[in-house]
C-alpha cells in the first residue's frame, strides 16, 4: 500500500491522490500509483495545456470524437497522405545530450510509423545557450551528434532545421525533433485495441530499468539534482529502430494487426491504457511475459520503464503466427503478453498476482484538467514601451552587417547539417540551407516542402504576435520554394505553467498560432507541449513555440531557389508590410549592436501576408522568378547577403528612404519587418509584368537593384553605405560556428553534481 507521502514523490498532489482513491474506491497499489503518476503528468496528460490547446480546431474536433492519434495526417493527393509531428526532448537532453537528442529522434519516428507511414524526413529545432560557455558547447556538440548518429543509421534524412543561441537556454537547451512520413490513405493504422479476445503482442527491444518515470521528470523544472536524473534518460539503439520500421510496415501489410501504438513516454502503461481507452475495451497483460533486460524487475518498473524501440500491437486472434513471423524475420522478438478484454480495465498480472487493475479511461480521460490563472508579465509594459528608433545610428553599416553574419544564430549552419545525412532515400531536391527543404515524392510529380521556425525574442516581447510571426514566416519559407502551405505541427516550449506569467505567455502564444493558422489555412494537425523549461541559475526560458510547416508542390519542377544566379538579373522587393518602427523591435540588430531586447516585435498583417504568398506562388508557377528568399533575422541586408553568398555572385542595391517611410538606414537595412520577399528575375522586361501582377494581389513590387559583380553594394539615397567583397562576408558567415566548435575545448565539462 502506498505511503501517504509517496504520491508526492511521484509528482501527484494531494487532491489528485484523493481523486485516485475515489476512482479506485480503495488505496491504490504502488504499481497503480506509479501508472497514475505518469499518465497524469503534464507530459502525458496535458492537464494544464489541454483547455488552451482546444483553440486548435483540429485538436478540439479530434478530442471530441476521441480520435486523437499519434500524429496528424494531411492528404497529398487522393492516394497518399503526409503524416507529421514534432516533439520535445528538452529535459533528457539537458542532462544527457547525446542520448537525450537521439531518443528524441527515435521517439518521434515511432509516432510516424505507428500510423503505418514510412518515415521520409527528420527536422529539428534547437536552442542553446551562447557558445562562449564550454558547457553550452558540450551540449550543442553532443545534441548534434546524437541527432546525426540516430537519423543517419535509421536511414531517414535530416532535411531542415533551425538553431538559435541565447542565454535563456543556458542549462536548459531545447531539442525539438520533427518527423514526417508518407502513408497510403487506404492503409492508415490506428492506436486502438479493438476486438475482445484479440492478442496483445509486445515487439522490439527488451524492457530495462532505463527511463523509468521519464514523463514525470519532464514535468518538473531542471534543478541542481537534475544530474542525478541521468538514469531517467533512455538509451537509443537506431539499428533496432531501423529493423522495427521495416518489420512494422511489413507486419501492418499482412492486415492482421488491428491496432498499434509505440511505447514512448510512460511505456507499457501509456500504450496499454490509451489503446484500450480509445476502443472502449480493456486489457489484461502478464508482465512475466514481457521480455526483460534484467532480472528482478518489479511490476512498477516494468510498467513505467521507457526503454526505447518497443511497440505494442493488437493482433487478430489466430493470426499471431503470421505477424510474429515477420518480426522474427527481421531478428526482433515478439511476445504475446495478454489480450483485449471487454471490461474496460487494464489488469496487470505478475504471474498469478494482480499488480494493478485500473479503468483504462481513468488513466486517460479522467486525468484532471486545470484551468490555470494567467497574468501579463510585469516586465512587458516597460520593455515594449521603448522606442527602438531612439537609438543612435552605428558608425559603420559594413561592420554591423559583418557582425550580424557572424552571429551563430544567423551564420551558416553547415557545421551542423553536414553531420546529418540529408540525402538518403534519394528524394531531397533542396538540401539544408534552402528556405525550406524540398522532397520529391517517389512515383509522382508532386513534392513537399518542410521547414521549422520560431522566434523566441519576439514571443518574449509579445507572445501573440511572436507566435503569429512564427507561423507566417514558416509559411513564407515554404512559399519561397514554390509550395502551398498545407499544415502545421508545433512544439510549445515554455517555463513553469503554474506561474501565472508563464501561463499567460502560453495562452497568448497558442491564441496567436491558432489565429495565424486560420488565416493562412494551415491547420495544426499535431503537436506537443513542453513545460518547466527553467533553471534556478538562468531562470525561465523565453516563450518558444516552434512551428513545423508542410507545404505541397503540385509539380516539383515548379520550384524556386534562394540564390542569386545570373549577372544582370533585376532584383525586386515584394512587400505587403506595415511596420511604423521598421521592424527594429526585438531585432537581432538591436540585440547585437545596442545590446537591447525590447520594443514591440515586428507587426504582422496576416491577410496581407496571405496575399503575398498567393502572389509568390503565382509567379513561381508561371516560371517568372529566378530566385526568392524572405527577409527575416537581420533584415533586408542579411537576406541580400545570403542570396549573394549562396549564389557566389554579388549585387548592387539602390534604395530611397522615401520608399521606406523615411526610416533611418538601420531600420531599412536591418529591421525585421515582416511580409517581405526578395526575388530576382531574368531581365528588365519582367519588371513591369511583376509590378502588374503584384498589384492584383495588393502587394508592392519594387525594383531595388541588380545582380552582378563580386561585391554586395548597398546604397541609400545615392550614398553607398556597404561595399563588401563576398569573400569577406562569407568568411564571417561560414566560420562563426566552426570557430567556436573546432577551435575551442569542447570535451566534456560536466559540472560536478
Amino acid at each position, binding site marked *: 500500500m502506498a505511503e501517504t507521502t509517496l504520491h508526492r514523490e511521484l509528482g501527484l498532489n494531494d487532491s489528485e491522490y484523493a481523486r485516485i482513491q475515489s476512482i479506485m474506491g480503495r488505496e491504490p497499489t504502488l504499481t497503480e500509483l506509479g501508472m497514475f503518476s505518469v499518465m497524469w503528468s503534464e507530459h502525458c496528460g496535458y492537464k494544464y495545456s489541454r483547455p488552451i490547446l482546444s483553440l486548435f480546431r483540429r485538436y478540439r474536433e479530434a478530442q471530441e470524437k476521441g480520435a486523437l492519434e499519434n500524429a496528424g495526417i494531411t492528404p497529398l493527393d487522393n492516394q497518399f497522405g503526409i503524416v507529421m509531428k514534432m516533439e520535445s526532448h528538452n529535459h533528457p537532453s539537458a542532462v544527457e545530450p547525446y542520448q537525450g537528442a537521439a531518443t528524441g529522434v527515435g521517439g518521434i519516428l515511432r509516432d510516424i510509423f505507428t500510423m503505418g507511414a514510412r518515415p521520409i524526413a527528420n527536422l529539428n529545432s534547437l536552442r542553446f545557450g551562447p557558445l562562449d560557455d564550454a558547457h553550452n558547447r558540450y551540449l550543442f556538440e553532443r545534441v548534434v551528434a546524437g541527432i546525426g548518429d540516430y537519423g543517419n*543509421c535509421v536511414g531517414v534524412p535530416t532535411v531542415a532545421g533551425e538553431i538559435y543561441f541565447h542565454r535563456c537556454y543556458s542549462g536548459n537547451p531545447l531539442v525539438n525533433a520533427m518527423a514526417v512520413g508518407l502513408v497510403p490513405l487506404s492503409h492508415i493504422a490506428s492506436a486502438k485495441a479493438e476486438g475482445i479476445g484479440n492478442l496483445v503482442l509486445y515487439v522490439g527491444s527488451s524492457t530495462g530499468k532505463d527511463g523509468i518515470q521519464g514523463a514525470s521528470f519532464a514535468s518538473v523544472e531542471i534543478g541542481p539534482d537534475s544530474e542525478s536524473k541521468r538514469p531517467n534518460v533512455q538509451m537509443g539503439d537506431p539499428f*533496432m529502430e531501423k*529493423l522495427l520500421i521495416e518489420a512494422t510496415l511489413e507486419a501492418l501489410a499482412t492486415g492482421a494487426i488491428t491496432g498499434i501504438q509505440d511505447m514512448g513516454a510512460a511505456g507499457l502503461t501509456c500504450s496499454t491504457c490509451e489503446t484500450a481507452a480509445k476502443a472502449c475495451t480493456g486489457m489484461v497483460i502478464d508482465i512475466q511475459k514481457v521480455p526483460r533486460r534484467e532480472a528482478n524487475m518489479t511490476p512498477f518498473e516494468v510498467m513505467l520503464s521507457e526503454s526505447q524501440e518497443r511497440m505494442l500491437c493488437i493482433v487478430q486472434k489466430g493470426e499471431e503466427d503470421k505477424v510474429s513471423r515477420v518480426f522474427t524475420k527481421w531478428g526482433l522478438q515478439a511476445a504475446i503478453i495478454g489480450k483485449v478484454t471487454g471490461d474496460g480495465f487494464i489488469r496487470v498480472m505478475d504471474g498469478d498476482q494482480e499488480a494493478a487493475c485500473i479503468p483504462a479511461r481513468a488513466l486517460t480521460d479522467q486525468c484532471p484538467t486545470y484551468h490555470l490563472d494567467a497574468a501579463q508579465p510585469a516586465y512587458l509594459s516597460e520593455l515594449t514601451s521603448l522606442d527602438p528608433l531612439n537609438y543612435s545610428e552605428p558608425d559603420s553599416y559594413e561592420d554591423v552587417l559583418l557582425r550580424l553574419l557572424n552571429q551563430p544564430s544567423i551564420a551558416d549552419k553547415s557545421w551542423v547539417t*553536414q553531420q546529418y545525412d540529408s540525402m538518403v532515400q534519394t528524394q531531397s531536391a533542396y538540401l539544408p540551407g534552402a528556405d525550406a527543404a524540398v522532397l520529391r515524392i517517389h512515383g509522382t510529380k508532386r513534392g513537399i516542402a518542410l521547414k521549422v521556425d520560431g522566434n523566441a525574442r519576439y514571443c518574449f516581447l509579445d507572445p501573440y504576435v511572436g507566435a503569429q510571426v512564427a507561423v507566417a514566416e514558416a509559411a513564407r519559407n515554404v512559399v519561397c520554394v514554390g509550395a502551398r502551405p498545407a499544415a502545421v505541427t508545433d512544439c510549445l516550449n515554455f517555463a513553469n505553467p503554474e506561474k501565472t506569467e508563464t501561463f499567460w505567455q502560453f495562452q497568448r502564444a497558442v491564441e496567436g498560432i491558432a489565429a495565424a493558422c486560420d488565416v493562412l489555412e494551415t491547420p495544426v494537425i499535431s503537436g506537443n507541449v513542453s513545460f518547466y523549461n527553467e533553471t534556478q541559475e538562468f531562470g525561465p526560458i523565453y516563450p518558444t513555440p516552434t512551428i513545423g510547416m508542410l507545404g505541397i508542390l503540385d509539380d516539383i519542377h515548379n520550384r524556386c531557389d534562394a540564390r542569386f544566379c545570373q549577372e544582370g538579373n533585376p532584383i525586386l522587393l515584394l512587400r505587403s508590410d506595415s511596420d511604423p518602427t521598421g521592424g527594429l523591435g526585438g531585432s537581432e540588430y538591436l540585440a547585437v549592436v545596442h545590446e537591447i531586447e525590447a520594443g514591440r516585435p515586428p507587426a504582422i498583417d496576416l491577410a496581407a501576408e496571405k496575399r503575398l504568398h498567393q502572389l509568390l506562388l503565382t509567379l513561381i508557377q508561371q516560371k517568372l522568378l529566378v530566385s526568392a528568399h524572405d527577409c527575416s533575422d537581420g533584415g533586408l541586408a542579411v537576406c541580400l547577403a545570403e542570396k549573394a553568398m549562396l549564389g557566389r555572385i554579388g549585387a548592387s542595391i539602390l534604395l530611397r528612404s522615401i520608399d521606406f517611410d523615411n526610416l533611418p538606414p538601420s531600420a531599412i537595412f536591418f529591421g525585421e519587418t515582416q511580409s517581405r520577399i526578395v526575388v530576382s528575375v531574368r531581365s528588365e522586361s519582367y519588371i513591369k509584368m511583376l509590378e502588374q501582377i503584384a498589384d492584383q494581389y495588393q502587394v508592392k513590387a519594387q525594383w531595388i537593384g541588380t545582380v552582378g559583380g563580386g561585391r554586395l553594394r548597398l546604397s541609400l539615397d545615392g550614398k553607398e553605405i556597404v561595399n563588401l567583397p563576398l569573400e569577406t562576408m562569407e568568411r564571417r558567415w561560414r566560420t562563426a560556428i566552426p570557430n567556436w566548435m573546432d577551435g575551442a575545448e569542447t570535451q566534456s565539462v560536466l559540472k560536478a553534481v
Partner: protein
Amino acid sequence: MKVGVIVFPGSNCDQDAYHAFRDNLKQPVELIWHQETDLKGVDLVVLPGGFSYGDYLRTGAIARFAPIMRSVEKFARSGKLVLGICNGFQVLCEAGLLPGALVRNAGLKFVCRYVNLRVENAETALTAHCRVGQVLRIPIAHGDGCYVCDEESYEQLSRNRQVLFRYGEADGRITLDSNPNGSMDNIAGIANERFNVFGMMPHPERATEKLLGSADGRLLLSSLIESVINGARTGA
C-alpha cells in the same frame, strides 16, 4: 542483364540503389535478402550503403559473415562484377575482396555533402564512360570513410592503377583541403587486381538525376551495365 542489390539488416541505401537502376537506368533489378545463398542469376551485385548490423562491432565486420556473402565471394572470384558503395565498400574490405580498410573520418564526425571526384583510371568496367581527369560531382555520407592500407598494398594499388577516384577540387586539383575524411592519398574508390570488384565511399546511386542535384553517378552505373552487356569484364 540483371542487377542484384543485397539487403543486410541495417542497409539503408538498398532502396536508393534499386530505384536508380530500375527507374533511372531502366534495368531489371532485384533485392536479395542477406540470409539467402542464391544470387538468382544476377550479372552485377551491388552491396549498398547503410549501417549493416548497426555497424556495432566495426563497419562491415558482421555483414561479411552473412550467408549471402559466401555466394558473393564465389561470384567475385569467378570474375563477375561487384560494386560496394559506402557500407558496401566497408563490407568488401572486411571480406578480403578489396585490400585495405575504412576507418573513422579524420575529423571524427559524420560528413554528408557533395564532393568532387577525379577519375584516375577510365579503362575499367566502372569508369569506361568517363575520361581520366574528369571531375564527377557525387555526394558522400559517412562517418568511417578514411581509406587506409599497408605500404605493400598501396604500392600495388598505384602500380596497377587500381585507384579509380581521388577527392579533389572542382578543377581536378588534388589538395589536402578537398579530402573530406583524411583518406590515404585522397583515395575515394578502388578496384581489386582483376578489376571486377569495386569499392567507393561516394554514392553514385544518389547522383542519377538532375532533380536531386547531379546525374554524374549515371556515368558509373551505365558503364557497369554496358560492361555486363558487352561481356567485357576486365580492364586496366
